[in-house]
């Protein structure tokens, strides 16, 4: 295991929380992994399991709430993209998410990128999360950067932004408001235990028919609890230590599909849908590195022509360390 690079995201996030000024900024405090006692949350989809919900403040979104969100975003923009302007992403980047999430700890989001502007990367920012920058994808030469799907935690009613960075360095933004909360401090479930026991296991399946040189959608699943350090044991008063995925690198036949810098906003057992352009039968390799500097790597055999859609699996080679 090599040395860990100082996590870029954490540095940026620290700035973001200091500058942020929104109600979350103080709670997020010096470390993005610090618990946020009393921070966050009024209503929780996750909490509905426990049969408790609350009046719905954002159903009648007031001007002042909208203004608070706007100033929060302005502060985040300055912190995360200093000195850079941002254009409306209409026609270039589209962000989809359920308006009201069924489970705040596992909110599926989807990002569509047009072919009009070649894109080199995408940022996902969840404004009111303790660590707002949830993900930064950088696409490589083997990518088909048109659709991305992932699952995130949402801690409070929030705006979410997808920012596409074009090859010529311009930023384009799409915005969504999402009603969900409690996703970050939601207590561990039985799936967390399963994820921990099975950590590093991966699955990959291909969505469409294989055609050489044509874009192919792949769904990558990684077993990892992605503990965000915000779940407290009330008796010991200890928090489950943060333990989460920092980077994922996917390559096809040695060429990069994407590099992902991620953080504590990714759900337990991350699932990522991405596109790549296979030429023929070949190897798709995934390397995951987590916050304990453990790496997991798997190589999947991508079948050549003649495989029907949905046939999973890209055979799973033995896991690395």
């Amino acid at each position, binding site marked *: 295991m090599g040395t860990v690079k100082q996590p870029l995201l954490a540095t940026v996030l620290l700035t973001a929380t200091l500058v942020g000024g929104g109600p979350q900024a103080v709670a997020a405090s010096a470390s993005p992994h610090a618990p946020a006692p009393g921070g966050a949350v009024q209503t929780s989809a996750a909490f*509905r399991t*426990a049969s*408790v919900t609350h009046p719905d403040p954002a159903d009648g979104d007031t001007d002042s709430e909208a203004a608070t969100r706007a100033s929060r975003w302005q502060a985040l923009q300055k912190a995360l993209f200093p000195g850079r302007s941002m254009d409306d992403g209409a026609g270039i980047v589209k962000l989809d998410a359920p308006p009201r999430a069924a489970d705040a700890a596992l909110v*599926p989001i989807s990002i569509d990128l047009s072919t009009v502007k070649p894109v080199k990367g995408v940022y996902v920012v969840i404004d009111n999360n303790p660590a707002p920058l949830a993900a930064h994808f950088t696409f490589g030469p083997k990518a088909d950067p048109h659709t991305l799907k992932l699952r995130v935690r949402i801690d409070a009613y929030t705006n979410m932004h997808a920012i596409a960075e074009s090859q010529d360095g311009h930023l384009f933004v799409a915005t969504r408001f999402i009603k969900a909360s*409690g996703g970050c401090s939601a207590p561990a479930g039985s799936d967390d235990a399963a994820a921990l026991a099975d950590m590093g296991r991966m699955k990959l399946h291909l969505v469409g028919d294989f055609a050489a040189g044509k874009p192919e959608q792949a769904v990558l699943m990684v077993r990892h609890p992605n503990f965000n350090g915000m*779940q407290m044991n009330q008796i010991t008063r200890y928090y489950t230590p943060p333990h989460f995925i920092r980077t994922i690198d996917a390559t096809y036949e040695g060429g990069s599909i994407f590099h992902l810098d991620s953080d504590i906003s990714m759900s337990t057992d991350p699932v990522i849908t991405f596109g790549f352009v296979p030429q023929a039968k070949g190897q798709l390799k995934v390397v995951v590195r987590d916050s304990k500097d453990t790496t997991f790597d798997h190589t999947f055999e991508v079948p050549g022509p003649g495989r029907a859609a949905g046939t999973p699996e890209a055979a799973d080679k033995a896991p690395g360390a």
Partner: protein
Amino acid sequence: MVTTTPVTRRHALIAGACLCCAPAFAQKRAGETNAFATEEVASGIYVRRGVDEDVTARNEDGIANIGFIVGRDAVAVMDPGGSLIDGQRLRAAIRQNTQLPIKYVVMSHVHPDHVFGAPAFQNDRPQFVGHARLPRALSLRVDFYGKRLQDTLGKERAGGVISPTMLVQDHAEIDLGGRVLALTAHGIAHTDCDLSVLDRNTGTLLAADLLFVKRVPSLDGSLRGWLKELAALESVAARRAVPGHGPTSVDWPSGAKDLERYLGTLLRETKEAIAKGMDLEAAVGSVAQSERSRWSLFDDYNGHNVTQAFKELEWEQ
């Protein structure tokens, strides 16, 4: 908040509730308990039907079926209620019925609508009975649940949790005098700490949230596990069961059919969705929709259930 024993102090801390206020509340609210009606579903077994709603300030989290069982020498409570107020009303109802000591408070699982009323029974010094995994589940979740319940009901009315003093690993019995209750700690099902009670005298199964009737179930444990535990419960020698939500009593085992069908549909259609390569968001919109007209609160919980099922099943081969 002066307490006399370490256990009590710890309980009070865990509960986060001002217990010294409790008696005052009971008095202030005396006479307001008319909404609290229990029904005798079998000889000596009384159940208050919870309303089919999510918690609101108005319903005081009295949304679960809770009640008590009277033996020759003692009373057992199951469950203690969804808030301090709910628990106090249950206690008042017990005292209108009998002066026998409340020796046991059975807490069926970790969810607040069933157990946050426990502090109302603390002065009775009962055994607080729970699944062997209940303490862990409570410790992980009390803060999360407590805050949100306090936001809705106010700090003084929300109640809190009490750590069980009697843990059930597999099976246990409690004797109320001429009435032995058989307790079963279940595998991961509705939650990871479900406890059921069988009164052999009357053939009554107190299933708590292992059984939902008419109100849509909520899945917070394991879908496969729940189906397995439900199948096992159906062979229990009972003629009726008390669901955790829904009517106070249903015939047994026929009363399990709707839940079994819903969970079976959820399993089958989620598996099909995964096999087809369907996304989670697409599955949430389509799985188990045939059940929609059969349950109250369906739209509030089905999406959550599909999400839970999806993430459980997507890792199977």
